[in-house]
């Protein structure tokens, strides 16, 4: 199974047509895949809260949005998630590279990883953790759940899910 293609296919199947991204090495393949899809408008953001603003506007303009980012972004988007996405009740699937988990080579990434689920729980954000490749089979259901509930929803995808972190 090609995870990158499967993720892009599920986004398209759920009418997600506006995707903003802030890159992570683990996400390079899926970002590249989204960039070449005709059914998806891909707009890179400079910062994740900016991306959430773009997604809020796109949603109000009639598009289903998604954001792809690293878990460190939870540290910079709490205000936006609370006062924009949640306060105005907007759906936002967040496909998140979960750095600092098993098979992580960079120690500093662990420092944010240990806070990630706690912060998401504090925000009452439904959170799913993909550790095995087969976990991606839940993505279609998670996307449907996100647009049913009009909430931001986190999908944490760790290094093991992506097949390790390069050669390190």
């Amino acid at each position: 199974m090609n995870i990158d293609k499967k993720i892009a296919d599920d986004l398209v199947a759920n009418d997600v047509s506006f995707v903003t991204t802030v890159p992570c090495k683990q996400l390079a393949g899926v970002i590249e895949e989204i960039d070449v899809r005709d059914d998806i408008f891909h707009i890179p953001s400079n910062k994740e809260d900016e991306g959430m603003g773009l997604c809020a506007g796109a949603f109000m303009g009639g598009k289903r949005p998604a954001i792809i980012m690293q878990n460190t972004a939870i540290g910079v988007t709490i205000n936006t998630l609370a006062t924009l996405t949640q306060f105005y009740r907007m759906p936002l699937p967040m496909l998140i590279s979960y750095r600092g988990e098993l098979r992580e080579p960079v120690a500093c990434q662990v420092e944010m990883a240990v806070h990630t689920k706690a912060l998401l729980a504090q925000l009452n954000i439904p959170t799913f953790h993909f550790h095995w490749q087969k976990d991606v089979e839940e993505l279609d259901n998670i996307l449907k759940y996100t647009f049913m509930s009009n909430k931001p929803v986190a999908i944490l995808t760790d290094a093991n899910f992506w097949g390790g972190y390069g050669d390190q």
Partner: protein
Amino acid sequence: MIRSEILKEIAPIIRDHLVVCNIGLPSQELHMIDDQPTNFYMLGTMGLSSSIGFGLALAQDKPVISIDGDGSVLTNLGTLPTIANNATGNYTLLIIDNGSYGSTGDQPTYAGQKTSLTAVAKACGCDNVIEVQDKDLGPVLQSAIDSDEMTIIVCKCDSGNIKLPVITLDPVVIRHRFMEAVKA
């Protein structure tokens, strides 16, 4: 002119268009001057007026005006390269540049000192950047809306606020009626 006087003057120009209005006093003033379902009032999230408006402009064809402030743009400077590199003709960014953080007590911003947001926007790659004095804004804004090219307007004006109440509309109501207006 101060911001509320500018909003009063441009209200007839923006009335029939989709407007995303900056957090705090700008939204409160626009709400008091000319509340419309086509106005999206930001009740929080400083800095994202330009991003929300730009996402909206990319997602549909109607003209969109983001009303922003110099302090808010400085908070989210990354927005300008994104807007520049994905330009869409139905988008106008109006930066009301009074050189101060109005909603928090008129503390000075760097835009009122050495930093020129006009120059920053140009350096970020925005092709149509117009700096205008407050009294001259109306016709410039009208032609930006009418134009097929994206325009960034930096409107220089005085700092100063009027006393007015907070917006008590529920955010979901603001969002719902705005989305209905987008579809209409």
